[in-house]
């Protein structure tokens, strides 16, 4: 973790009606690290992502990206700066081949700026660039998978497609909203190296996860949320051995299970 945090969340607060979904949550994300955000259901994890990426307006608090205030900016402006996100509920184009889904991010101004000589399709053709990106993310180029109808793809590939959508923008930060949920063990196992590779390319990753065991293998640091408040922050080991965290996850056996495994 380098000295200057790439993303700073300061006292983020969000109230839905009378319910405090987030209550003065603050944390930093260091450049190039993988930060995990965990917490029981309804603890405000997705709300954090929505607040950072501008999909929800915060009631109060600030978000800084590279020291610049991005609080209250429109979602597309934040994405244009390089802070991208995946969605928990994926809605790709089911009626189109998989690679066609990438035409949409490749059409964006950021992709045109960052795409290099190929210009994300400015000079070349977005379809080819799309297939290239899909290959990087684990769609076998020579097989028929990238050309298959999206509706025929299994969930694992759809999650990769969602990540590919972010990568097409050449982002600086990716916020992953439960990319492991709904996947089988083997599918997750094949996704983990992907996350590591994204990190090696210098992209900062924030992961919201329910699957602690897998998360703890890739994450450098963990933030724990409970009832919209930050419970603690630390390395995976510190978090696992913390008493408060065990209590928050009612069935403390989850943590035990993770501990025995790790």
């Amino acid at each position: 973790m380098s000295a200057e945090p790439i993303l700073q969340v300061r006292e983020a607060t969000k109230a839905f009606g009378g319910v405090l979904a987030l209550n003065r949550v603050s944390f930093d994300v260091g450049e190039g690290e993988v930060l995990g955000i965990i917490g029981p259901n309804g603890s405000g994890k997705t709300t954090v992502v929505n607040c950072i990426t501008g999909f929800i307006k915060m009631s109060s608090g600030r978000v800084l990206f590279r020291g610049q205030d991005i609080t209250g900016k429109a979602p597309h402006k934040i994405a244009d700066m390089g802070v991208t996100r995946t969605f928990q509920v994926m809605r790709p184009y089911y009626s189109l081949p998989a690679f066609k889904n990438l035409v949409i991010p490749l059409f964006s101004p950021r992709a045109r700026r960052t795409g290099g000589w190929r210009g994300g399709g400015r000079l070349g053709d977005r379809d080819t660039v799309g297939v290239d990106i899909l290959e990087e993310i684990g769609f076998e180029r020579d097989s028929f998978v990238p050309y298959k109808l999206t509706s025929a793809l299994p969930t694992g590939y759809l999650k990769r497609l969602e990540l590919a959508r972010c990568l097409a923008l050449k982002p600086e930060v990716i916020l992953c909203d439960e990319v492991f949920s709904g996947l089988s063990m083997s599918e997750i196992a094949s996704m983990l190296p992907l996350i590591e590779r994204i990190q090696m390319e210098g992209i900062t990753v924030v992961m919201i996860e329910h699957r602690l065991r897998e998360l703890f293998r890739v994450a450098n640091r963990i933030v724990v949320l409970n009832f919209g408040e930050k419970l603690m922050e630390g390395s995976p080991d510190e978090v696992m051995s913390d008493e408060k965290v065990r209590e928050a996850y009612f069935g403390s056996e989850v943590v035990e299970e993770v501990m025995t495994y790790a």
Partner: protein
Amino acid sequence: MSDEQRQRRKERLDRGIKVRADSLYAMMSWRELGYLTAPRLLLIGGILVLPFLVPGMYWQRVIAVICIYALLALSFDLLAHFVGLVSLGGALFIGIGGYISAMLNTSMGVPPLAAILIAALLGGIICTLLLLPCLPLRGVYFAIVTLMYPLLLMRVIEAMDLFGGTDGIMGVDSFPNRWVEQYFMIGMVLLFLFGLRRLVNTDLGLVLRAVMDNDQAVKASGMSVTVFKALAVFIAAFMGCLGGASIVHIYMWGGISLFALDFSILPIAATIIGGGGTLVGPVLGCFILVPISELLREFGTLRIVAYSIILMAFVVFRSEGLMNYGRRKYNQFERWVKV
């Protein structure tokens, strides 16, 4: 559902020729080439010779009117089925385009064809600016706002006695002759029909459809949804205003009836009858509906009743429309199979 039906289901298979014609090999056989091009040639050829086939001046004028409705229907189809903005305000485009063209012609002496093009451009910009604040609205709200705009402008012109008030603007120049009138309109319809078909299949068209299906993903990809919606509204408004500008030169008069309900409802009915999302369907719908409406003209408002009922019946009972039905029949054959 009867017992017999329950044990059978309809199986749909692509025709062999459709499958062959989808691939590059279609180029190698006249039969397959014909299969691909026949419907298009039939449509273009049919529309082009139509002015020679109809009896008399009156029906030739109807062709021009059909083309204006077809432009409106195309603009409705583009907005509703490719961008997800259901606009019930075709009359807004017609009215604004019509008034601008009529004023350009009567007060500045701009010749009709030039006035039409300027009015389409200016009107497109004005309509886009008027609708710009409403673009973030969701389905029903956008529909209500667009329905109210033409009514508002109509009442404002009436109340403040603007632009000739209820009398309207008289003495607008007509087209040089009726052949120019008809072939200008037909040319515009064909231009926009095939232009839009091309547009919706480009990358830009894909992004527009993404705005409709999943605007969250578009935002998360770093693009402003409003910009794309505004672009689509401009294209639609340009077409609508072009139609409106033409109509004042056809009738040589422009007034508050340009904001009338006909222009909002009939294109929607045509789109739904013809088949939404096909672009050709709405044009065909206009070629069916407008003549019916003209035949009923002597019965006054009965024509509105007629196409309202047709519209309602199609929305409720046959929402797929003729074109989708026809395309299915053309490309596939169906049979009952036992389950």
